[in-house]
């Protein structure tokens, strides 16, 4: 059974580009364009992994991650942060929010995302 990945990204074209690469790699993908949609989609889609941008339309990813951490069953879903702000961030600061990996949109490739996903599976 394919891993289910929820991609929380408000840039529609960026989301579709990444989603296509992940689908070719065999993952089942759902795109949530903002935090409110993500909360609903998490309940409906039951992802194994969440890939999330930090700056989202309507509210930042931090409010979404806080929401997830406040639910026992949702707090265990690993999160990969994928953002243009990554160079200014420290993964250790994000770990309390459930983040397991940090990728920079400006330098990452689809293979980097797949590598991080496989790393999470090996943990």
């Amino acid at each position: 059974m394919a891993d289910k990945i929820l991609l929380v990204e408000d840039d529609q074209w960026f989301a579709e580009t990444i989603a296509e690469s992940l689908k070719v790699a065999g993952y089942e993908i759902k795109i949530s364009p903002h935090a409110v949609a993500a909360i609903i989609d998490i309940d409906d889609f039951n992802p194994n992994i969440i890939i999330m941008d930090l700056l989202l339309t309507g509210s930042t990813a931090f409010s979404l991650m806080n929401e997830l951490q406040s639910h026992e069953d949702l707090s265990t879903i690993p999160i990969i942060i994928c953002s243009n702000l990554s160079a200014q961030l420290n993964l250790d600061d994000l770990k309390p929010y459930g983040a397991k990996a940090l990728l920079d949109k400006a330098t990452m490739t689809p293979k980097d995302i797949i590598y991080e996903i496989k790393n999470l599976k090996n943990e």
Partner: protein
Amino acid sequence: MDVEGKNNVPSVIAAAHELKSPLSLIRQLSLILEDESLTADQRSVSINRIYLTTQKALRLTSDLTRAYNLNDPTLFPLSPINPLQVCNDLLYDMKPYIEAKGKSVAFYSPTKIPLVISNADLLGRILSNFLDNAINYTFDNEKMQLNLKVYKKENKVRFGLRDFGPAIKASYFEDIKNGMTKNAEAVHARPASSGLGIYISSQFAEIINSKIGVIRHRNGATFYVDVPISSQLKLFEI
């Protein structure tokens, strides 16, 4: 809510962040083109998106260049302008981008509208920044609105762009102005953007004797620019 722009160069960090977004996207789209399994249609869509995103990035760099030159107002002469023509030009130029994003715009204007005194280039840039903003923040299945309204007593025409998305904070313009003068923490502005386009628009507006502002709605915002009516050619109302 009105704002008066200050002739300050936007922070380098804000400009870098705004440019990083489209460039990251162009890079990802280019990487996808290496995939030999892409169909001709998928390749065509990716190429079109690269083209449109490049245009967006170039609009920003042009705006930044103009913002840097605002100290010399003679570069931006004012003249009587037809508001309808400005709006039609905007919608024509942005049509490919709007359609590629799966969005649409309704245009509302009074039957008769006076000429305004402005600079067509800067006014067009203000409106294209509003439209870029609206495209980002309008949820799917919602239609943006471009509105022209005449306020004869106040001697102005209002160009308004309504988006249907998340509400914005009351301190929106304050946050943007504060963000532009420091190393901007983009999360404190309207999410997903540093507000650079709106900030530059406020500077452009000041040079052309106009004012930009925003009307908050529960389901979005209307960004507007108020432009003075031309008194010279009142007999020639369109």
